């Protein structure tokens, strides 16, 4: 899973002088990763020694929520590298290679079962994104890069301290998830709280939640207009997964203390993102805010700490990779036609480009969570779960569903309806191929949630169990207390 995209990336770099070959190699690498991702569940976990001196192992496990996320990530990487190798003017092979490297890193994040290994991938994946932004970005790319770097690194370095301290303080035998899950919850509540805060700083930046979100909007705005780099952006929102897979189960007592604050922030993020989307006139800023709103709902689902909510949030995370990534690619196609990212320059495209209009509408519907399409089950479950424990933040977050309807329809109207004499090409064959995996993903996640949800559920139950145990401990706070206090 990790090696295949990296090897593909190396081959792409070697074939950079022959672009068609590089394109084939890049797509083949992404497809191969996808095939591996499909057959991943049920395989035996990998467990190699890596740095035995301090108890770090190279442990990966293809079962659980991570496998769903790797599937979505690999699926979206296919159109992304295709676009990268056709629509990027200079250094396209390097662009695609960086995307593939990032895919390898993402797979590592999702599958790692060793906390230090998780961190290794978490941090390493930052670099391809930075280079994509810095080399191929827009006019203000340097500012955006520095902002991104400082936010991400500050967050993750605090995370590193917590990671190293978890083992040292709890006396766990190694950094493997099983050892840590046994030892870490035994720590006193105050210690857990501090460690959790350290982890939370790093993960909240990459969730992202307000007020640590501002790098995201700049990143998307300044990224290459083809949208291929933004696909990576939508895949690299790994914060919620970090909380789900590591933060909550390892430090449940700390989580119970801090989560209400994060829950409230998530609700604010959801609403803030929705209003940001309504108010923006720039296509990519629009999508960035819209996706920020989704992230808020995911946060609400995770920090509601209810079984259904956590599962739903992870499912939503995978689903939004497809829908948000797809819309960024559509924006890239629009830019290819009109050389502008401002909404004001568009309008009335539906007549000249009916297929483009129809598919965009389809993806906008997905984006705003229409039932039957990919975002709905996850969004619904996130909110439903949160309602069980903490109705007020959930209610606030639910408002965004209404707001989403407003901004979604508004977007479609301003792009495609109205009067326009402009001659615009409809979708060409390449773009059809680009959108095909996106559509498949949307329908798959929308209509057949069960198999994926099952795999997520098994891991949510573990997190739930850890939280219940912490809550039941003498002096602990109970889940219903957390909800009741709100």
């Amino acid at each position, binding site marked *: 899973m990790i090696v295949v995209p990296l090897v593909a990336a190396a081959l792409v770099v070697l074939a950079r002088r022959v672009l068609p070959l590089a394109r084939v190699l890049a797509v083949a690498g992404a497809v191969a990763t996808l095939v591996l991702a499909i057959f991943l569940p049920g395989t035996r976990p990998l467990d190699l020694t890596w740095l035995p*001196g*301090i108890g*770090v192992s190279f442990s990966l496990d293809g079962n659980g929520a991570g496998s769903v996320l790797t599937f979505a990530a690999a699926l979206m990487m296919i159109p992304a590298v295709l676009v990268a190798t056709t629509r990027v003017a200079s250094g396209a092979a390097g662009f695609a290679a960086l995307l593939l490297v990032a895919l390898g890193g993402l797979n590592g994040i999702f599958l790692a079962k060793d906390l230090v290994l998780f961190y290794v991938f978490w941090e390493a994946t930052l670099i391809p994104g930075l*280079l994509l932004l810095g080399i191929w970005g827009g006019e203000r790319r340097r500012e955006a890069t520095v902002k991104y770097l400082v936010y991400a690194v500050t967050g993750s370095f605090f995370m590193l*301290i917590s990671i*190293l301290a978890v083992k*040292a303080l709890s006396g766990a035998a190694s950094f493997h998830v099983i050892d840590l899950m046994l030892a870490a919850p035994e720590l006193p509540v105050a210690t857990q709280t501090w460690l959790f805060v350290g982890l939370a700083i790093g993960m909240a930046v990459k969730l992202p939640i307000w007020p640590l979100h501002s790098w995201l909007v700049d990143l998307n705005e300044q990224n290459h207009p083809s949208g291929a780099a933004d696909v990576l952006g939508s895949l690299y929102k790994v914060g919620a997964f970090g909380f789900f897979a590591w933060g909550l189960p390892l430090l449940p007592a700390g989580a119970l203390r801090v989560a209400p604050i994060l829950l409230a922030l998530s609700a604010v993020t959801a609403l803030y993102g929705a209003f940001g989307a309504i108010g923006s006139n720039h296509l990519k800023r629009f999508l960035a805010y819209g996706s920020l709103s989704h992230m808020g709902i995911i946060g609400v689902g995770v920090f509601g700490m209810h079984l259904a909510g956590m599962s739903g949030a992870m499912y939503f995370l995978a689903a939004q990779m497809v829908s948000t990534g797809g819309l960024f690619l559509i924006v890239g196609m629009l830019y290819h036609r009109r050389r502008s990212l401002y909404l004001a320059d568009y309008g009335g495209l539906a007549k000249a480009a009916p297929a483009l209009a129809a598919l965009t509408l389809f993806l906008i519907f997905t984006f705003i969570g229409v039932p039957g399409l990919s975002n709905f089950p996850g969004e619904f479950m996130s909110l439903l779960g949160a309602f069980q424990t903490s109705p007020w933040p959930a209610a606030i977050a639910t408002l965004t569903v209404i707001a989403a309807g407003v901004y979604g329809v508004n977007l479609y109207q301003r792009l495609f309806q109205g009067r326009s004499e402009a001659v615009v090409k409809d979708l060409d064959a390449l773009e059809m191929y680009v959108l095909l995996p996106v559509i498949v993903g949307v329908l798959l996640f929308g209509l057949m949630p069960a198999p994926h949800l099952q795999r997520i559920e098994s891991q949510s139950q573990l997190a739930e169990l850890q939280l219940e145990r912490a809550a039941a401990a003498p002096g602990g706070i109970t889940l219903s207390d957390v909800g009741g206090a709100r």
Partner: protein
Amino acid sequence: MTFPGQIDIHWSVLAPAIALLVTAAVTLFIALFGRDSRGAAGAALIGVITAGVFTLAQLLSGEANAASFGLRYLGDVPALTLTLVILLGTVAAVLVSWDQLQRGGMEHPEYYPLMLLSALGAVVMASAGDLITLILGLEIMSLPVYALSAWRTRDRQSEEAGMKYFLLGAFGSAILIYGAALVYGAAGSFVYGDVAAALSSGNLTLLATLGGALVLAGLGFKAALAPFHQWAPDVYTGAPTPVVTFMTVVIKIGAFAALLRLATVVFPALQPWLLTALAVMVALTLVVGNFSALMQRGVKRMLAYSSVAHAGYLGLALLATDHGGVAAAAFYLTAYAFMNAGAFAVLSLISDANDHGDDLERFAGLAKRRPWLAAVMTLFMLSLGGIPPLVGFAGKVLVFQAVIDAGYVWLAVLGIATSIVALVYYFRVVAYMYFRESAYEPPAFRSGATQVAIALALAGTLLLGVFPGWWHTLLSAGPRLLAGL
């Protein structure tokens, strides 16, 4: 002090040092009668590799715990592994010098012999089991480097570097020797183990503590720990780049090897405030090194300050010698040798023959002009900044883990906070290479030998980064330290 009735000499323990000494002598003759400096460089390489083979043979033979002259010259795991890293650093420095000497008009025959002698001094320091051997090693290491830093004759900056280094270096050595004398006065022995034993058994006097403090200060000077770091940026900026490649790696290892042993054996037997003083020095080094590096426009000067900052991270490990700190420090030194030598090797290809033109603007657009060089430099910068999966990250994790285990959480937090600063200045180089266009076309210098050095450093940075386990296991093997424990 009691001499053993018969002086025990383990020739295998001494073999690496003797190989270096012989090579230095042979190289001098080759250089005197050779047409250019290449022959001497080749001889130096052969000698260093021979010494490396001796070291490796000893390390792998399983008898890695021999010592010579009582416990005064040790062949334990830290000594042997650090010797290997010193030799690696020397190889890198020789390769970087290969073409640069001619290019910079610095081909004097004494160059390679001096470099080998200095490496010999560092090896002796790494193997020293008593204060006298330590002082001998320190002087053998330092004296040639004073000359080497002023190697660029008729260059004000280089001469200033040599002079400054000599004056302050002599001062540092004097403090160290005075400290050693006081320790001897208090403990009646120079051998680390005997000193610790004597002091623990109730002979802890003001004399001993004062002596320990002076030894710490003297070595702190060589290791460039704040507040004794002032010389480092100026010397590193003024000295020729190949010499700096040598100094930042080899001298640093020598100084830290000695500090490691003292911090393990001798310092704990002294007043606890001495360790607190060391902690404060480390904290100060982290802050001063990183923030000063952030202010620099010249890449060479930035790297100079960054090497001060790395002394701070190494210092963290000194405080945790009971919690895996020795292996962590040795690993970090290995990592640092690879990535730092690599960075300076790249720099030597980019700056002018007289070492000027190392400012950030020179790196603008490098990704377009020389894509491979830019990619490699990016890896070195990210590794120095501690980004996984490169070797610098593994080093940082080991050091931080050790220092957290030892209970210095505040220092770990400080180290992390300053690492954020560090990443900003390292990434700035990457940003210049990739995100900017160059305003002019600087002269491009190419050198096969330097490329070999870069390839070596790159291999270490990548391989040890992805597979850190085996080397760390090797470093952690065996009894912790011989030194009479």
